[in-house]
C-alpha cells in the first residue's frame, strides 16, 4: 500500500516536472524542473527495488549532468530569449500524442509474463557479480570506459578556444 502511494506521488510529480521542462518559458527554470524530474525518477527506482541504480541516478544525473546543463545555460546566456517553439509546434504535438497512444495500446494489450518471485533486496553485490563476474558484461564495461574517455577528449577538443 505504501509502495502504491509513493508510486503515484512520484509519478505525478515526475510528469508535472517533465511538462515544466517543455512548457516553462525560462530556460533556467526548465533546467531546475528537469533536476526535479531526475530526483523523482531516482525515487521510482527505489520503488522498483533498484537501490544501486537510484544512487547512480542521483550521482550522475542530479550531480553531474544537471551541473553541465546549467553551465551551458550560463555560458549561452546572452542569446537566450526564453524557450520559444518553432513552426512545427502543432504537428509535433500531434505526433507525440499519436506515439503515446500507439505505445499505450501496444503495451496494454500485450500479455506480459509477470514473475512471482520477490526481487533481490540489496542489488549492489549482485550487480557487481553480473558486471565483472564469469560470463558477465566485462567487455561492455571496457567498451564503456573507452567511450567515456573518447567523449571526454572530444568534449575538450570541441569546447577549447582555438
Amino acid at each position, binding site marked *: 500500500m505504501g509502495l*502504491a502511494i509513493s*508510486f503515484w506521488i512520484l*509519478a505525478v510529480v*515526475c*510528469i508535472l516536472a*517533465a511538462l515544466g*521542462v*517543455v512548457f516553462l518559458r525560462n*530556460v533556467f527554470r526548465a*533546467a531546475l524542473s*528537469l533536476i526535479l*524530474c*531526475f530526483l523523482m*525518477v531516482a525515487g*521510482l527506482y527505489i520503488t*522498483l527495488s*533498484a537501490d544501486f*541504480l537510484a544512487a*547512480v541516478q542521483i550521482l550522475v544525473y542530479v550531480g553531474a*549532468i544537471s551541473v*553541465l*546543463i546549467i*553551465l*551551458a545555460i550560463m*555560458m*549561452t546566456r546572452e*542569446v*537566450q530569449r526564453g524557450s*520559444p*517553439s*518553432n*513552426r*512545427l509546434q502543432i504537428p*509535433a*504535438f500531434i*505526433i*507525440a500524442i499519436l*506515439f503515446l497512444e500507439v*505505445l*499505450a495500446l501496444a*503495451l*496494454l494489450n500485450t500479455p*506480459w509474463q*509477470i*514473475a512471482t518471485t520477490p*526481487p*533481490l533486496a540489496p*542489488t549492489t553485490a*549482485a*550487480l557487481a557479480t553480473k558486471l565483472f563476474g564469469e560470463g558477465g*558484461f566485462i567487455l561492455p564495461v571496457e567498451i*564503456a570506459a573507452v*567511450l*567515456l574517455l*573518447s*567523449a*571526454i577528449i572530444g*568534449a575538450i577538443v*570541441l*569546447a577549447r578556444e582555438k
Partner: protein
Amino acid sequence: MTVGLEHYLILSAILFSIGLYGVLAKRNAVIILMCIELMLNAVNITLVAFSRYVVPALLTGQVFAIFVIVVAAAEVAVGLAIILAIYRGLEDIDVTKINLLKW
C-alpha cells in the same frame, strides 16, 4: 490498488512522449538536449521495470540501464561541447538558424 508493470510502462511512455514533443518543437538547443535526457530516463524506467517484474532475480535490465546512463553522460558532455562551439562561432543556439550545412 496495487501497482504493476503496466503503470511503470505507461508512466515512461508519457515521459518519452513529452521528451519527443520537446525535441521536435523547441528551438533552444540546450532545451532539446534536456528533452533527450528526459527520453533516456523514460527508457531507463522501462528497463528497470521489466527487470523488476519479468526477471526479478537476473538484474539484466538494471545492467542495461547502467550502460544507458554511461552513454547518456558521454552524449550530454559532447552535445554541450558542440553547443558551446556553435555558440562561439555563430553567437546563437537557435537550431532553426543553425543551417550552415543546408544546401
